[in-house]
């Protein structure tokens, strides 16, 4: 174990001697607002564009400029990339890649369709979504459902190399995008509902060889944790910090999956991401804090060694995965400039941390309905500092006991659908769910490659509220306060976009693309696309004109239950009409819609 860490530290030293410049190309693209070079908009995950030709004054006149059918009828998450004059569009399984020529009305330049065993489909929890492609150094990176990572020549679609990141027969799959950093590609994995012990892996961008791999739980050497140097809330994590928090060998099927978004700070050279739920959903089968599931990780990009960690939901009882994006901003806090990390967790708390040290600054509910914890203990002298203060009534520790009225539901106050940040308003724009649940855990046995869930749950719109299942909110991360909130009939499952034109865009499950005023939330525009939107809104400029692009194609977690409609057991069956099925509003689809303001 020590050897591995020593080796890892040595390569840190090596990195200093050899300045990593491999990704200047991608940095340039990211810094050019006319292109959209990375799924998250930038390394900081702000999803903010400096483009302002479409703005609060003229967005009302926006019209559809062109569209493109992907040919696939499943949940479409993520969004297109725009590199130079080419747009790259991906699909859910079978994970087709299209290169569209923007100089030629979107003509297909090349198409890549991988051959994947359809047996991967049913081991993907919650639909066959894929959150998009990545680009660096003339290469398109596709991480397929079956965990094959493929490097394609961006000009021709020819395969350069491929690597296998996991085994679908054990329930290891992929839904996430990858993040190119310097000379590496950072890659996550899914399978928390199948008892997979998940990890983050860095592949060498040129060869596809593994540079480092860091598990979410297990021995320190396999987690790339340094007992003395890796810190949690300012203190060293200590030896075997993960192993001590599990009983027996349960950590070996412990989950902690890494299917969310990744951010990167070139100044600190740290990669940030969150780990998912511990397996199973039945907490009684895994006593302990289950570290480091439900954790924010800051890892060195070159070595993978963790600099700091923070576990948000120790011993999860509700499936509140910690995978949502970490948004990196430089803002004033109490008059001091701070390097911040803001994270909207599934558990319903919005966290603001110092991203250099991992210091916890703010943790407040971003939906008032959240009830499983009264608050996060912010008292630094308290033995429970940084931990949620649980509300007994909403604990699910007893097998075969149905705990009622827990808010949020397992899909979280917010799932992966990414928020946006505008440096002009200093506000975060957050797509949220407003859904609660009853949760009944029970004993399950583990079989490799078979579901390992262990709980029955039923979901319903947050009671005593506006009756809808979502809100789109503006959030002040330094105060931990909601600034405005727009009620939505369904969960908002689309990634937001903020622009220098003082407009914020998001999609809805009925299929609307909406534009609202960044300051007030006032609706400025909406258009109903052919299918529900769970994709993320993108913008780019081509030949002097700004465009807004979004994928439609309802599905994903949102396609479960929402397709059937959710019932509020407390409201009785008569209320079902109020929460009518999404299928009354939209249908399956797979389409890219591109908008512009006419000249």
């Amino acid at each position, binding site marked *: 174990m020590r050897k591995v860490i020593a080796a890892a530290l040595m390569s840190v030293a090596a990195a200093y001697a050899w300045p990593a410049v491999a990704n200047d190309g991608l940095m340039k693209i990211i810094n050019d607002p006319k292109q959209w070079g990375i799924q998250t908009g930038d390394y900081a995950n702000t999803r903010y564009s400096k483009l302002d030709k479409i703005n609060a004054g003229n967005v009302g006149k926006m019209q559809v400029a062109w569209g493109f059918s992907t040919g*696939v*009828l*499943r*949940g479409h998450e993520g969004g297109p990339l725009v590199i130079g004059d080419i747009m790259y569009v991906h699909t859910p*399984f*079978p994970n087709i890649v299209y290169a569209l020529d923007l100089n030629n009305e979107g003509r297909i330049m090349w198409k890549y369709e991988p051959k994947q065993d*359809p*047996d991967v*489909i*049913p*081991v993907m*929890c*919650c*639909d*066959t979504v894929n959150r998009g492609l990545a680009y660096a150094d003339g290469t398109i990176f596709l991480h397929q459902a079956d965990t094959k990572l493929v490097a394609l020549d961006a000009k021709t679609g020819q395969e350069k190399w491929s690597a296998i990141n996991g085994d679908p027969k054990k329930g290891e799959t992929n839904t996430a995008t990858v993040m190119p950093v310097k000379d590496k590609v950072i890659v996550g994995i899914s399978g928390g*509902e199948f008892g997979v012990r998940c990890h983050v892996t860095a592949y060498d961008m040129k060869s596809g060889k593994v540079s480092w791999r860091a598990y979410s739980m297990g021995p320190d050497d396999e987690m790339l944790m340094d007992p003395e140097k890796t810190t949690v809330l300012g203190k060293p994590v200590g030896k075997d910090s993960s192993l001590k928090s599990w009983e027996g060998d349960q950590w070996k099927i412990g989950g902690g999956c890494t299917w969310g978004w990744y951010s990167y700070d070139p100044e600190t050279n740290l990669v940030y991401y969150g780990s998912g739920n511990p397996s199973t959903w039945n907490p*009684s089968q895994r006593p302990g804090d289950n570290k480091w599931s439900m954790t924010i990780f800051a890892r060195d990009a070159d070595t993978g060694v963790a600099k700091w960690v923070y576990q948000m939901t120790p011993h999860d009882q509700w499936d509140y995965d910690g995978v949502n994006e970490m948004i990196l901003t430089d803002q004033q806090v109490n008059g001091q400039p701070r390097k911040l990390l803001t994270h909207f967790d599934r558990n319903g708390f919005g966290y603001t941390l110092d991203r250099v040290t991992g210091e916890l600054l703010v943790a407040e509910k971003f939906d008032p309905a959240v009830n499983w914890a009264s608050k996060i203990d912010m008292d630094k002298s308290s033995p429970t500092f940084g931990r949620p203060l649980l509300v007994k009534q909403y604990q699910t520790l*007893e*097998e*075969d*006991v*149905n*705990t*009622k009225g827990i808010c949020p539901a397992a899909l979280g106050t917010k799932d992966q659908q990414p928020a946006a940040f505008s440096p002009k308003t200093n506000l975060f724009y957050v797509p949220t769910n407003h859904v609660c649940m*009853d949760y*009944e855990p*029970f*004993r*399950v*046995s583990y*079989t490799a490659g*078979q*579901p390992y*869930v*262990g*709980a*029955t*749950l*039923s*979901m319903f719109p947050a009671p005593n509220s506006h009756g809808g299942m979502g809100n789109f909110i503006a959030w002040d991360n330094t105060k931990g306060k909601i600034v405005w909130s727009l009620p939505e009939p369904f969960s908002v499952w689309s990634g937001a976009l903020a622009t220098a034109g003082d407009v914020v865009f998001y999609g809805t499950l009925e299929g609307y693309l909406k534009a609202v005023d960044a300051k007030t939330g006032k609706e400025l525009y909406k258009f109903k696309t052919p299918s529900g939107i769970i994709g993320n809104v993108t913008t780019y400029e081509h030949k002097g004109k700004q465009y807004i692009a979004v994928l439609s194609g*309802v*599905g994903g977690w949102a*396609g*479960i*239950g929402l*397709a*059937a*409609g*959710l*019932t509020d*057991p407390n409201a009785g*069956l008569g209320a*079902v009409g109020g929460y009518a*099925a999404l299928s009354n509003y939209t249908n*399956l689809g797979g389409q890219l819609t591109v908008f512009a303001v006419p000249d």
Partner: protein
Amino acid sequence: MKNKIRGWLVSGVLPASALLLGLSLMVPVAAVAQDATAAAAAPEGGKTKDELGKYTLPDGTPTYFIQPDGTIDWYAYSGYRRYHAECHVCHGPDGMGSSYAPALANSLKTMSYEKFMEIVVNGKREVNSSQNQVMPAFGENNNVMCYLDDIYIYLKARADGALDRVRPSKREDKTKAYTANENQCFGRPG
């Protein structure tokens, strides 16, 4: 305490999975023996009940039985729970379907018991230009196979409109024979 949290009468009987581990979990095992089942109304339609607590039609097909006061048979209740643990992530709540898997509360209006078994055990694959639907084979998954009849019976009750989209609140008790059978299925000591 359990009774209070549940908010409904459990007649001292605990669901299957707690029982399996009852001893180690401090479950009051003695309570299990207190079978307080009310005298059930006579099943209609020639349904018969075996010692496991399972009702069958004259042709041997498993079926549900719901008493006039809403009390449902153990299998249908157990099926409700197992369905929502194993099937719900694709087939949606209450058998209502999702954007990528059929509504079984509808499918079972026409699908036979034998066909249902066959699909659950072997899986199903419909991959073509218009759809990518694959159901895995559950033949080796005890969490499903040990409760096949339970799940079928629950879904059949949904398909026949006998059971609404609500969590069943009143149910018959679990029998000792059912527990013994369950233990045997999981290969656990009875």
